[in-house]
């Protein structure tokens, strides 16, 4: 059920209910209104998240300390492992990738918030 709709090329199959909400050079985030899912296209694959899981993913990525990753000379700190409870997808990201991921997710989060505000305003207009 959490499987994303992907074509062999690994890109999101655009459907009418799916809308791009944020894109950067390194990835894209879409929202599917038919299934109430957020699709994250990053690091070569597309993953579908429920909104709750998406927020947890963002929190997990935000909690990564970039400067300690940069300053630590240990081999193991060259890459960051991101796993999310209840999700099969696992990310193994280098420092610049983590940076890009942060940017992508926070941009998408902002658009979700903006959409929320728009909804509130529109409903207020109707009432």
């Amino acid at each position, binding site marked *: 059920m959490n499987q994303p709709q992907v074509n062999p090329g690994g890109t999101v199959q655009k459907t009418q209910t799916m809308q791009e909400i944020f894109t950067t050079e390194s990835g894209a985030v879409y*929202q599917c*209104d038919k299934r*109430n899912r*957020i699709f994250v296209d990053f690091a070569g694959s597309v993953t579908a998240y429920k*909104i709750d899981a998406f*927020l947890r993913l963002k929190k997990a990525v935000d909690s990564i300390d970039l400067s300690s990753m940069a300053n630590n000379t240990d081999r193991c700190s060259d890459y960051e492992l991101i796993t999310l409870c209840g999700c099969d997808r696992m990310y193994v990201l280098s420092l610049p990738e983590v940076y890009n991921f942060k940017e992508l997710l926070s941009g998408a989060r902002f658009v*979700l*918030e903006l*959409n929320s505000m728009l*909804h509130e305003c529109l409903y207020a207009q109707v009432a």
Partner: protein
Amino acid sequence: MKDLLRLRTSLTEEIEKVLNEQIKMEADASAMYLAMSAWCDRNGFDFSAGYFKKQSDEEREHMLRLFKYVSDMGGRAVSPDVTGVQIEFESFRSVFEQALQQEIAVTQSFNRIADRCQKSKDYVTFTFLQWFLKEQIEEEYVARRALELFDVIGEEGTGQYEIDKRIPKITYEDTYEG
């Protein structure tokens, strides 16, 4: 485009976070009161031990009340981890001093949450908080009265025994006559 954030829960992330912090605070308070109960028990303050046990149960009820609200609103209620609970206390009196300080801290915390609710115009949660704000009047009153017994009765002679005996009799009257 659907508003997925709002469909999930009517709580903002910020309010959900502060409510979860309060859930933890109530859990900590419950554990602290239980520790106080144990200390009183092993030092011969039988009535106070019973009083603190009851307080501990009440704090857990507070925690569950908050917990249910967050869950009911579609939020993610977090069962908190409670660690490093105090075991020893300086003296009989200091137990009650600490109890009052804890209640004051809780009142202040609820005030801050109410303030956050107003700022983010979350009047649903603001209304839910009213029960707690009112409850804190009683909680502080009882804790303050208990501490005052130490001055009124005095700890000399059989003083501590008398104080202990009076502790469970403290009640808060929510009337003008009381």
